């Protein structure tokens, strides 16, 4: 780990602090409130599952936490940085250094090979020797023999492995996952869960994920439930 602030000795310090987060969208004359006064704290190295029905605002919340979008109201502090008040480019710089993503629909670029897809964030971050690092990661996720394959030539599970390799490539302190097993069958979903958890452990990354998958939610340390844009009572999940 390169960041002195991370590591087990700082576990009690919140990496993410959210206060009174509200997101509204205008639909013609109507205003639809997607998130309403959400406040939460996530500690360094924690794994948190955000659950809730479809349309309860999970993905929106994730997007705001990651600084992909700006809230109508409230504030997100990521490692002490006021994400919602940063400019787009400052947020991008923050994402490049500290944040990783895994999406439900993988979001691999179809024209690039597995290797090239994993190299993308490394190249943006001006990482020396991006190719070797990407190759190591793909080997770590079990795709060492599929480096030159394009997403079309990979199964869903394999594509998600590539996406996970990409997410960990820039050694993020926090990883956001949006239904990472949502598009996969049980067996494959299980494998992806294992991989995600294992990498999380190895790299000491904070994990925040939105999921419908009960078993995945159960493997997280905390579980936040969203109901119609409000945070329900928090349950401590697995010990």
């Amino acid at each position, binding site marked *: 780990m390169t960041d002195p602030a991370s590591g087990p000795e700082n576990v009690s310090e919140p990496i993410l602090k959210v206060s009174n987060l509200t997101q509204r969208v205008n639909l013609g004359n109507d205003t639809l409130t997607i998130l309403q006064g959400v406040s939460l704290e996530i500690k360094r190295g924690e794994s948190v599952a955000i659950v809730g029905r479809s349309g309860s605002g999970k993905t929106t919340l994730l*997007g705001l936490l990651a600084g*992909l*979008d*700006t809230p109508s109201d409230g504030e997100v502090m990521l490692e002490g940085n006021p994400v919602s008040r940063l400019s*787009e*480019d400052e947020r*991008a*710089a*923050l*994402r*490049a*250094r500290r*944040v990783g*993503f895994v*999406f439900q*629909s993988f*979001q691999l*670029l*179809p*024209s*690039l090979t597995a290797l*090239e897809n994993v*190299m*993308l*964030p*490394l*190249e*943006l*971050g*001006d*990482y020396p020797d*991006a*190719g070797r690092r990407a190759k190591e990661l793909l080997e770590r996720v079990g795709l060492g023999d599929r480096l*030159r*394959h394009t997403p*079309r*030539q990979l*199964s869903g599970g394999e594509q998600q492995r590539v996406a996970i390799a*990409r997410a960990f490539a*820039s050694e993020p302190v926090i990883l956001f996952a949006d239904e990472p097993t949502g598009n996969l069958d049980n067996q494959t979903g299980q494998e992806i869960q294992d991989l995600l958890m294992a990498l999380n452990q190895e790299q000491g990354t904070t994990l925040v994920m939105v999921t419908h998958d009960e078993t995945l939610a159960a493997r997280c340390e905390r579980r936040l439930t969203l109901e119609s844009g409000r945070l329900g009572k928090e349950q401590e999940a697995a010990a």
Partner: protein
Amino acid sequence: MSASKKLGSVARDWRERDVKVVLSALVIAVATVAIIALFANQLQRTLVTSASSFLAADRQLEAEHGKPIPQAWRDEAESRGLRTARMVEFSTMLSHGEQFQLVSIKAVSDAYPLRGQVEFQSALEGEREILEHGPRQGEVWLNPRLMRLLELDVGDTVEVGTLTLRISGVLVREPDGGFNLAGLAPRVMMHADDVAATDVIQEGSRVEYISLFAGEEEALENFYRWLKPRLEPSHEWESIRDGEALSESLQRAERFLLLGGSIAVLLAAVAVAVASRQYAVGQRDTVALLKTLGLSSTRIGRMYLWRLSIWGLVGMAGGLLVALPVFAFLNSLVAEVLEREVPFSVEVGALAPALATAIISLFAFAYPPIRRLRHVPAMRVLRSQPGEADSRAWTDIVIAVVAIFGLVWLYAREVVLVVALIGGLAALLATLALIGWLMVIALRRVSGGGNAWRLALVGLYRHRRASLSQIAVFAMTLMLASTLILVRSSLLADWQAQLPEQTPNHFLINIAPKTVDEVEGFWEQRGQSLDALYPMVRGRLTEINGKPVRQVVSKDDSVNALNRELNLTWMEALPQDNRIVEGKWFEEDQTEGVSVEAELAAELGLEVGDRLGFTIGSETITEPVTSIRTVQWESMKPNFYMAFPPGGALEGLPATWITSFYLPEDRKSALNDFTRQFPTVSVLEVDHIIERIQEIVRQVTQAIEAILALILAASLVVMAAVVSATLKDRQREGALLRTLGGRRSLLVRSTMLEFGVAGVLAGLLGVAAAEAAVWALQYRMFGGEFRWHWEVVLPIPLISGVILALLGRWQLRPVLSVSPMLLLRRLE
């Protein structure tokens, strides 16, 4: 509704982006080709009409043997919907009291002129009027110089033969004034029905009977087919294209229009090809879905054929809806430039290439990939195995090449043009393949980083398949556009050179050897210098290698030059604009030999060394051909079929001298003094012909600029269409890069650089291929000489780089303005 119908429904398709791109490409293709074809067609008609006034008709039938042309022929023409008129031309003495003057009479019927106008003044110092008829019976119009010479005025009477005619006006200009160095007595115009009463025309008189015809091109052609077997050797059927001075310019303009049209066809094919190919490849998932739903391959095939047909129809209808108003607008512009009514007529035949282009390129590019997909098992459609992807694409390429080749051939039917364009494109693609290979080698080692340049190069390498095909399309587009630009510039330069400012516009003919110095002195006093003076001896070519010409040249190839006396000359130096194509020009002190004009030499099958016999008066001289040279007939300078060396046999024969010079409009009164002082010298005024040609050249130039503008607009649209074909992928990539933390400015710079580099590359390739195509075209079609065009070669790659960089920036727009979260969801 059955599943296949539902999936095949056009309304549902319309919401697909790829379909919209295909339909837009179809509309653009049909519209561009239709507009250019219609416009070219219209222009050609307008130009020919405006040039036709040189004949006062669309066609002339001349009889040189002194026998009238049968009335039945004109009746036949009229029954075919043509308009006709007749003329009689002869030379005779005109008298007024004691004064006599040799004049050249043109007697015209009521319908004269069928094309063009007569310029007329009702008094010597009166206003010019534009008329569309000749004098009435009993009246006569005289050339103003003749009136001054004989001190006549409007209202006076003159005698032609035994007939007395009243002068009712001054003939300033006749539309078919012509450019003939023979028979240059002052012009008098009278009515054709008065000719018999003059008693001038006897058996064997030198009279020329001429019938004029005007009407639809097709009717004219049909009539000629009817007429041809009835013609005798002394009959001559003339169209404006036979006129030496103008025909070259017109032919080149027509060829330019043809080239423009062919380029439009190619551009349109490229646009539809790119779009439909993109669509077809994007249909994998649908085909797979249909297969899993249990649809047979045949039904899938049929469904797509049906769909493509519907779009074809929608695209064609849309294209025509766009084309017709634009054409109407262009038409009104032409009318404005020409300052006269241009009828709005849509030639249905001109639409055929547009529709054929759209349909053929749609099916040739969209159907083969789909057809191949339907034989592939559903699972393999959904997930391709590495390496198998495009193994059978070569059949597609063959189909595409045949389709494009066929289209251009269908449109142009000009081998050189098709070969030049397609050859240029092939060379371009071959070079591109090489560049692609070099790119793989050179860029493989480049790795990305926070640096925009490196990211751009990595981007080029990563997307090499897409980049190369985009570069290919851009390069082709640029090649087509630059070909047109290059041909246009050289065409305009040629025309400019052909008739520069101060082109000699007056000829002095029939100058007796001993008055040459006096004539020169006369004009020098008035500040006008004469061009070179040439001696001129009139004679006929009668023998080739000892055999009579009539035997050597069969009757069928009627060689114009043999029907009349030729102007023979001797000269020391080769005129500047002539070029030796065979043999050698006369050496100093050489007194034997003759230099023959190249076209005539070809018609007669002459070669260097053949011996030609000329009959001049009662003398005969025989000389070997020592050189063959080309002549710029359209240069409006004295030009000669046959040139002899000075000091040879010709020089001993009685000759007169000819020269030309430039006389500005405001000095024309000097001609009156000149004719009074040198009554035997004929003055040929060609200033109005030159003005006319310059005017036509101006019109053609404007037309060419308009077509060029259309093509350039179409090229931009094609480029935008190509960029938009990968829009979705690019935007997803942009959104992802931003999610992964790419800064906006980095994204913008690397994208613009990547597109800019592709643009410069495409520009270089396109310009190089264009130069190759122009070299072929220039050489074979436009008869000019090739040179590099740095003024085009240098800026075009830069411009194309900038345009593409801007297009790249433009497609990035939503990526920059919308939150990446939203964009990723939208693009899913």
